[in-house]
Structure formats: C-alpha cells, structure tokens
C-alpha cells in the first residue's frame, strides 16, 4: 500500500478491506509459520512439560521514540518477562487495536519492527488479531502480546531464595527507556539525546543458566525503574538492599535529561535490562559473561543484600545514606 494511505474503520469490519489489511500487512511478515492459511488458532508442539506464559499490553506515546517503537517494545516486553522467569521464549501472539486514521506507513514500520525483534529473540508470531476503533477512541495503535516459552530446567528462581550478602547485578545502564520516551514526548529536540534501551535480555539469561542455583532471582526493571523493582522484592521481608550512587550505571545523555527534568533515574524504566540477585561468589563470573555480549557491555554491580528489613537504601555520592522510595503518582504515565 502506498505510504500516504490511512487505516479506515472498514479495515476492521471483517469484509474485503479487513482481508486486504491482513493479506498485505500481516501475512507477508508473519505468514510463514503456524499462521499460514490464517487458522483460528495455532497448533503447537510442546517443547517440554513445563512452560512459562505471560502477557502484556503496550500503549506507549509517542508510538515511535529514539531507539525503538511500540512494535519492538511489544516483543521485548513480553519476551523479557519470559526470560527473567527462567524461560526460553518460543511463541508470541500479536493483537493490534488500531485507531482509524493511522497511516499505513507507520503501521508498516511498527510491524517491521515486530518481525525484526521477534527474529532477534528467536520467537515466532503464531497467532494474532486486528481491530480498528473510530478516530478519537485510541491513540494510533495499542498492541498486546502474549508469550509462551519453555521453562529452563537449570533455573529455580524466586525472591525467597535471596540471602544476606547476595550481590545485585544489572546488565546495563538504567532509566534509558523512560527518559528517552519522556524527552520524545515533550519534543525536547535533543541531538544525541537519550536512547531507549528496548531490547531482548534473552541472551543475557541464557549466558548464566549454567550457573544454575547461584542465580537466585531475576526481574526486568520496567515500570517504576530499579527503585520500584528492588522495593517490591524486599517489601515485608527481613532483607533489604544497599546500593551505591557512585556505582549506578547511567548513560550521560540519560543522566543529563533526568537531572533537567528532576526525575530520579532509579524511578525511570528500562526495557532491555535485567536485575539479577546472585550468590556473591558467582557475581564476577556473571559480569564477565554479560560483558562479553554487546547488550551486557555496561553490566555492573548495583549493590548487596542486607538485613535492612524491607528497605532499599542508597549510599549517596556525598557519603550519606537515604531511602530509595517507590515512585508515587503519575511520574511517567504510558511509557510502555
């Protein structure tokens, strides 16, 4: 379709235009596997007896931001949730709710990104759905993905396995996605501004699976950032986390914009990072494995597990200590 055409309400009506949308936009990109022939559901061969299954919806504004768009974000978000649960992602569903008036050029770029991200993650889009809503009833496009993966037998992960003295590692710089989306939304017009880190953490997880039991727990620090994730993990428990401000990995552009906007980088989201709790003895090995991968080049030790009863404490650059609170209110609405 030519690039100046837009999606019409009739594209969701189930008639000729719907067929056209599916055949021209979906089938060429995703029709080579179980989607071939457009069955009502995908029939799949189970890869093992334990599966991981998750779903996530994506409503990010703007749809395209420095470093990615809603398409690759929708793949990475779900794939990363499977990965940090100790899963090997296999299949995705893809459901689109399109607002009347969305240019086909934008839709095409988003779907290209879905395909490219899925390929990079080694997952296949095997089923899906498309709906169109009237102008004003959506924000361009909303995307839902659900994912199924094989549970890797090497991992037995759980926050209850975390012990005092464990190390808290992060696979790269913090807050890049949240700050990049916010600066794009405010039209700040930066040259070399913050770039979203949207990406897969799958290889990072696969790289440490041989270490098995030394890996206690993993999470991806999305909404609420590292601050929210760490607080969730220790809340109501005897354990706490101590992190050091001088060790926080921050990209210069992200740090500068966060400062300017008065946002704590510990409260801004990442979309391609993993936070991993591990036995102290294994920390150096994990960092070495991660740093050998391009997506883990910025891996760092964030801090250690303490007996600070449910508290996340930051040792500041000035040498003082303070609480790391959870973000409150609508700090960054609709970043994913």
């Amino acid at each position, binding site marked *: 379709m030519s690039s100046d055409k837009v999606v019409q309400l009739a594209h969701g009506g189930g008639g000729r235009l719907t067929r056209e949308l599916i055949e021209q936009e979906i089938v060429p990109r995703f029709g080579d596997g179980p989607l071939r022939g457009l069955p009502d559901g995908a029939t799949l061969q189970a890869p093992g007896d334990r599966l991981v299954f998750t779903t996530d919806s994506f409503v990010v504004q703007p749809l395209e931001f420095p470093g990615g768009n809603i398409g690759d974000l929708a793949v990475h978000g779900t794939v990363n949730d499977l990965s940090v649960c100790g899963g090997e992602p296999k299949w995705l569903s893809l459901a689109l709710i399109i607002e009347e008036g969305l240019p086909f050029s934008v839709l095409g770029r988003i779907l290209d990104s879905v395909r490219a991200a899925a390929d990079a993650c080694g997952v296949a889009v095997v089923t899906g759905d498309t709906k169109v809503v009237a102008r004003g009833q959506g924000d361009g496009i909303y995307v839902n993905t659900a994912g199924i993966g094989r549970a890797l037998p090497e991992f037995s992960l759980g926050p209850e396995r975390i012990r005092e003295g464990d190390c808290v590692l992060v696979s790269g710089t913090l807050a890049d996605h949240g700050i990049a989306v916010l600066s794009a939304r405010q039209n700040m017009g930066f040259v070399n501004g913050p770039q979203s880190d949207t990406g897969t953490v799958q290889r990072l997880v696969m790289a440490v699976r041989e270490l098995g039991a030394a890996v206690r727990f993993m999470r991806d620090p999305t909404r609420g950032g590292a601050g929210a994730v760490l607080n969730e993990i220790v809340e109501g428990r005897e354990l706490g986390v101590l992190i050091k401000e001088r060790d926080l990995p921050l990209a210069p552009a992200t740090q500068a914009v966060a400062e300017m906007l008065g946002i704590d980088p510990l409260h801004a989201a990442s979309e391609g990072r993993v936070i991993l709790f591990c036995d102290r003895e294994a920390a150096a090995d994990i960092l070495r494995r991660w740093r050998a991968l391009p997506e883990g080049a910025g891996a760092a030790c964030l801090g250690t597990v303490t007996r600070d009863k449910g508290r996340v404490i930051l040792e500041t*650059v000035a*040498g003082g200590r*303070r609480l790391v609170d959870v973000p409150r209110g609508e700090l960054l609405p609709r970043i994913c």
Partner: protein
Amino acid sequence: MNYIDGFRDPAVAAQFVRLIAEQGRALAGQGRRVHIMEVCGSHTMAIGRYGIRQLLPGNVELISGPGCPVCVTDPGYIDTAIALAGRGAILATFGDMIRVPGSDSDLSTCRSEGGDVRVCYSPSAAVEIAQNHPDREVVFLAIGFETTIAPVVSLVGEALQAGVRNLSLLTAFKLVPPALYALLADKEVQIDAFLCPAHVSAIIGSGAYEPFAAGYHVPCVVAGFEPLDILYGVNGILGQMLKGEARVENQYARVVRPEGNLKAQARIAHYLEPVDAVWRGMGVIPSSGLGLRAEFAAYDAEKKFGMPVRPGRQHAGCRCGDVIKGKLRPTACGLFDKVCTPDHPVGPCMVSAEGTCAAYFKYTLPDERQGGRK
C-alpha cells in the same frame, strides 16, 4: 558531564565533611549548638536526596524553612480557586497544587466532581487555553517565590499583546526576605544562620541578605543545590561562627550576582506591587507578597470576579505551620507516616514535591526518624 559530576565528587565531599566535623568540634568545645535554616524547598530536597543531614556533627542542625511556595499557601486560596471553578472558570495550575488541601476540599476532588482543572507545565499554556476557549474564563493559579514570579507575571504581558481578555491570575506570590524577618523576630524559633536559596537569590541578589547579617548578626551563605554546594555552604557558615563573624557569602557565584537579575526585577515591579500576605502557619506578614498593580486589575481574578481570598481553615491536628517555621521536625509530628503520607496527605508539606514532610518521608532512614535531631 563535569557540570554534574564536578559538584558531586565523593572525594571532595569527604574533605568537606572532615572540615565541617573539625569546625563543629571546635564550636562544641565552646559549648555551642548551631541551628542553620535552609530556607529553600529545593535545598530541603537535595539535603534529603544526598543524605547530608547525617554527615553533620551532632551540634550542627539543619532546619527546614518556609521555602516551599505550595506549603505556605493558605487553605483559603484553594477555597477561592474551587469556588471559581464552581462558577465555570477553567483553572490552570502547576501540578503541585492539585492535591493541596483547602478548608474542605482540594483541586483533585474538585476536578473529579466536574470542575475544569488543567495542569500546565509552563505559564504560557494558560494563554493558549484562553485562546482555545474564548467563551470561557481561564484563571491561572499564580503562586511562587521570586524565581517563579517573573515568568508567571509575564503572562499578563503575553495576554495583553495577544488581546486575550478571558484570562486572569489568582495571585499568592510570596517574597523570601520578609518571611526571614518574621522568623528572626519569633522568639520560639532558634536560627543562628541562613543557608540562603540558590535560584531565588539569582533574582533578588545576594545583597538582599545584608540586613540580616548586619542587623541580626546572622551569617548568610548563598549556596547552590548540588551536594558539594551545600557542604561548602555549611562549612562557610561554621567558619564565620567560629570567627564570630556574620557576613553574606555568595558561594553560588556561578549563578548569583550581588545585585541579582535587574531585568527580572524590573519586570516584576512593572506588573506587581507589595501587598500584605497570609502565610500558612505564620499568619499575615506585612508587605510579604506581591499583587497586580491597579492598572492590571482586569487580569486580577479576585477583583475581576469580586471574590477576595479569605483565610481558610486547616485540618485539626495538622502541624504544617510549625514545620514551615522550623519549630517542629516532621517526624515529631503525631500524624507523620501514620495518618499523613504522600498518598493520603493531611497538610501541604506532605503533598508538595518540595515539602519538608515529603522530603523526610521520601528520604530519611527509620533510625534517623526516631532520633532526637532534625
């Protein structure tokens, strides 16, 4: 990134902490306790964010002052704003005001009950709203200290130039120096020195504090908002106290000049004149606010709609007034973290991004909360 990291260097911070400890010891040797008021809300937040209070010796206390514009706004102001919304006006406001309690309600509740309350990130947005709704009255909630006043009052100029007549300001502008006079006159508040605001001082100039140093023998040090700025400022204050001096020191010379920003001062004087103002917890302080001059009365919401702001009532048991004056440590308030939290605030000091109670809630560790010190 030198402009950030340069002012956060841990090694330099450690040196300052050592110097401060030495001077603190020397003062303790003379039996002296030092009560330093950080006037500005941004200083309060930075002190919390960098854990600076714990780095100071036991006889040196940082007391948070009245420098959060939202916190010092009287509940009666919110009441008038809600009444204006009830009469169909669009309220345009900075986001901080949304949950500040009035006598009986707040703007958030007002909005959920159908009031048209819109959050602006820049005062200019209010002009746009007025242009987009020529059939409605738009009232901008014009609060703030000297830093905010110049850009906000420029709205009137923008509106005049664009021929916008359906926009007005509900003003509660406040001035820092008159509040400092009031605090120094209050015998219940012990203040030995002021850590003076960074950005307010950029407008009014470091010279504005000369009367406090000369008249009250109170050292005044203007400091920036970075951790090294604050430590440097505290160190400067202790140095003066050891020598028995009381001077104005401008340690934020990269931004602040002695005479301040003359252009901003001229703009403020063009539109505004001194008025008596009500401060939450402090009552009426003469000539401590600014109101629109008579020739701009058409842009003055109180006059335009005949709805003067009258003092409101605050929640029984709320001690924000004492917190604002530096008489009460937030953690010593009976409501703190029990009834009053950022999610369910009782008073404005827990709501505002620069509120003293919010800073304590967000940053202080439990052992500090229980300790006797500020």
